[in-house]
């Protein structure tokens, strides 16, 4: 090959390498951007008057007087829409039966759409489920539901060779010539007066319990469960891991036993996370009976086993990176080996050890598979500190799965799911970030 081609190949090789690194960066962006942008929407959004009503009656927050004034205005506008409905009710009564049949079904759809948008219609009983007692609490959802009120979705099955496509048909055209036709432009024009949207930061999303399986309220029980599980795992794994690391670095002699223990460590690191869940179920719950069934304790123990190898490795690396001269100086002054370890080596290795610990904490918080069978429940309230030994808890990681895949109305509560994912990712990434900062600060301190 001539030199030109060789140079070209060399350049393209470099481009390939840089390209694949850029793809990795892009992948990170592609994953994080929708999570962050939609997740913030769970916290910062335009709340409607329904949301303020909900907060006052369910969480006893907000000013009752202000809300009363708002409701008077809002109800004034709503009443006109309800009047149109009532007028059409009377008109429907007087139609001949065939024409009634034509409108009946579509009219029911209109009523349903209006009920979804504004809450129970006048004269209707208060529904059992909280989710049906209020209209749309978020303005973005209200706009979607307004579209549902104005247009009927019809599926086009005329061509059997193509996948059917939905078609929007204006409801005003369906009811042309009746008194109901006035409703649609009226609602479209006055929707913001009926809903009174306002930008708000709903901190309750983090601090409230959920209401009616996450339709309303916040995710505090999940956040608390995640914190309990992660900290519980650390309580068991951190001391064990650090002591094991001390043994491996300071006491172990090369030999069969040592290499066996080391391969055990890397084997444990490679076990699939779901197998930890199986083990936790079979050992902690079915054999040791640490609790009746799932519990925070069983979950923490399972997670502790999972993060143990990471902690041992990080602590080992930290201890090994302490300069030999520290140790020799201490031994030379006549202190014992144990004393040297406790007073000289461990303090010097502390930043590294803590960094590893904090990163493992993040890993324990983010894992799902080990806690499915051992600790997590999908619905539940925040548990007290006294219940951690016996009761299961909701946790962020599990509930993200549960709300996204198994919730009966998963598509309606996307904002809650995004908010949960963002919270979990934030917890994990902030822990990682603080590990980095911690390392920098403590090592500065140690240097003096």
């Amino acid at each position, binding site marked *: 090959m001539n030199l030109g081609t060789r140079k070209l190949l060399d350049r*393209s*090789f*470099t481009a390939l390498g*840089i390209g694949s690194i850029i793809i990795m960066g892009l992948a990170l962006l592609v994953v994080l951007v929708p999570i962050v942008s939609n997740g913030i929407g769970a916290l910062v959004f335009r709340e409607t008057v329904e949301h303020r009503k909900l907060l006052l009656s369910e969480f006893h927050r907000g000013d009752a007087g202000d809300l009363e004034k708002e409701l008077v205005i809002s109800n004034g506008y709503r009443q006109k829409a309800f009047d149109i409905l009532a007028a059409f009710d009377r008109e429907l009564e007087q139609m001949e039966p065939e024409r009634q049949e034509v409108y009946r079904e579509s009219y029911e759809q209109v009523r349903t759409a209006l009920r979804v948008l504004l809450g129970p219609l006048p004269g209707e009983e208060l529904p059992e489920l909280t989710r049906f007692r209020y209209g749309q609490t978020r303005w973005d959802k209200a706009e979607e539901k307004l579209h549902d009120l104005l247009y009927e979705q019809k599926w086009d099955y005329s061509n059997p060779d193509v996948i059917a496509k939905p078609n929007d048909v204006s409801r005003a055209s369906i009811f042309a010539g009746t008194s109901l036709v006035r409703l649609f432009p009226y609602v479209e024009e006055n929707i913001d007066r009926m809903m009174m949207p306002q930008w708000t930061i709903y901190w309750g999303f983090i601090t409230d319990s959920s209401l009616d399986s996450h339709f309303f309220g916040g995710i505090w029980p999940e956040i608390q469960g995640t914190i309990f599980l992660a900290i519980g795992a650390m309580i068991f794994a951190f001391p064990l891991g650090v002591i094991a690391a001390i043994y491996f670095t300071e006491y172990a002699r090369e030999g069969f036993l040592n290499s066996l*223990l080391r391969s055990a460590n890397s084997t*444990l690191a490679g076990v699939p996370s779901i*197998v930890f869940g199986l083990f936790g179920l079979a050992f902690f719950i079915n054999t040791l009976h640490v609790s009746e069934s799932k519990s925070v304790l069983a979950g923490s123990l399972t997670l502790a086993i999972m993060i143990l190898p990471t902690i041992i490795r990080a602590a080992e690396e930290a201890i090994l990176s302490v300069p030999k001269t520290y140790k020799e100086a201490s031994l030379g002054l006549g202190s014992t080996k144990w004393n040297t370890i406790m007073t000289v080596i461990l303090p010097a290795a502390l930043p590294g050890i803590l960094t590893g610990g904090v990163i493992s904490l993040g890993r324990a918080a983010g894992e799902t598979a080990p806690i499915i069978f051992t600790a997590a429940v999908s619905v539940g309230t925040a548990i007290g500190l006294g219940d951690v030994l016996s009761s299961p808890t909701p946790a962020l990681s599990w509930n993200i799965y549960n709300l996204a895949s198994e919730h009966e109305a998963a598509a309606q509560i996307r904002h809650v799911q995004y908010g949960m994912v963002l919270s979990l990712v934030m917890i994990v990434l902030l822990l990682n970030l603080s590990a980095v900062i911690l390392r920098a600060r403590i090592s500065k301190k140690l240097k003096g």
Partner: protein
Amino acid sequence: MQNSSGMHENEAAKSGRSSVFVVSARKRKLQKISQKSGEGTLLLIASFVAIVVLFIFWFVARDAVPYFRLRGFQEFFTSSEWYPADEPPRFGALAIIYGSIMVTLGSALIAVPMGVIASICLSDILPFTVRQYVKPVIEMLAAIPSVAYGFFALVVFAPLLQNVGGPILMWTWWVIAAPVLLLAVIVASELLTAPIEKEPKKKVLHLVSALFLGSLALLFLYFVGRHLQGLVIMSGTNALNVSIILSFMALPTIVSVSEDALQAVGRELREGSYALGATRAETIIKTVLPAASSGILAAVILGIMRALGETMVVWMASGNSSHIPDPFFNYLESIRTLTATIAGDMGEADQVTGSARFHVLFAMGLLLLVVSFVSNFISERIVVRQRKVLSGQ
């Protein structure tokens, strides 16, 4: 000397006279005992990990064996009919095992080339300052919880794939294949004309063969691209989706472990190659990669294990349908994996503890455990051997 002083101390102790030596002897003895016992305790705690590994094997196997005792081996490994709730139940896990293999292979196909090239780039090509910005990106990719990836795959990626999957595939094909084919055409036409000596004839032939091969490549690109664009993806939750997401989860492992392997190859080898006139790419491909190959292999095994053992992404975004796709390499169909089956079926099975339906999930867990143990063992042996070879030079 020491012996005599020891005897002296002993005598002193026997006679009961108080002396500094007595105290120090006792103290030394005590110290020695406490040191030994302390060391023993430390060893005990350190061997806790080994005990845990044994326990994991024991307890997973203990619940897996009853399944094989009840139903035998044949059905599990040869049938692909998975109807655990039927009467009589059927536990054919072949399709599920195949699903696991499929997504693992698929993610390896994406992650291994990308990861190895990225690690080469990190260790040999990029300057140190840029490397400092790339490292956090890789760490963040590794730190994002698997359920967040699963959520992304299910809520963002699957609808995207379902609606505009064809165009996405086509553009990916063009972006990746076009430059590769262009290079291939240039190199091939040059190699073809290399034996010809006469100058004007060579140039003409070079041009002709380049044009001919180039138009062939263009046709190939176009037709494959058109085929990809025309593909109808019935469901976005399929093997392709999962493979892509898993590959990005396996990448950090592959990159960091193989970067270590590349760093372990000394400067001398690289400099020797440069001195012989090789370009950087030639040095890396012909010298550095062979020397680091076993370490990179270990990295690949570890990365693949991450993909095989991953639960949440496959559970949420693989479609969970237990059948072997038709044809068997069709990545656009929904599949089901071992991990997802364990996670998904336990909820119904654990009310009937003791049934085959409960124990079959442990049998799957045991299968995963054995595979991860074996591959971990292999990768560890490889790393140890490479270290020996490199330090032996």
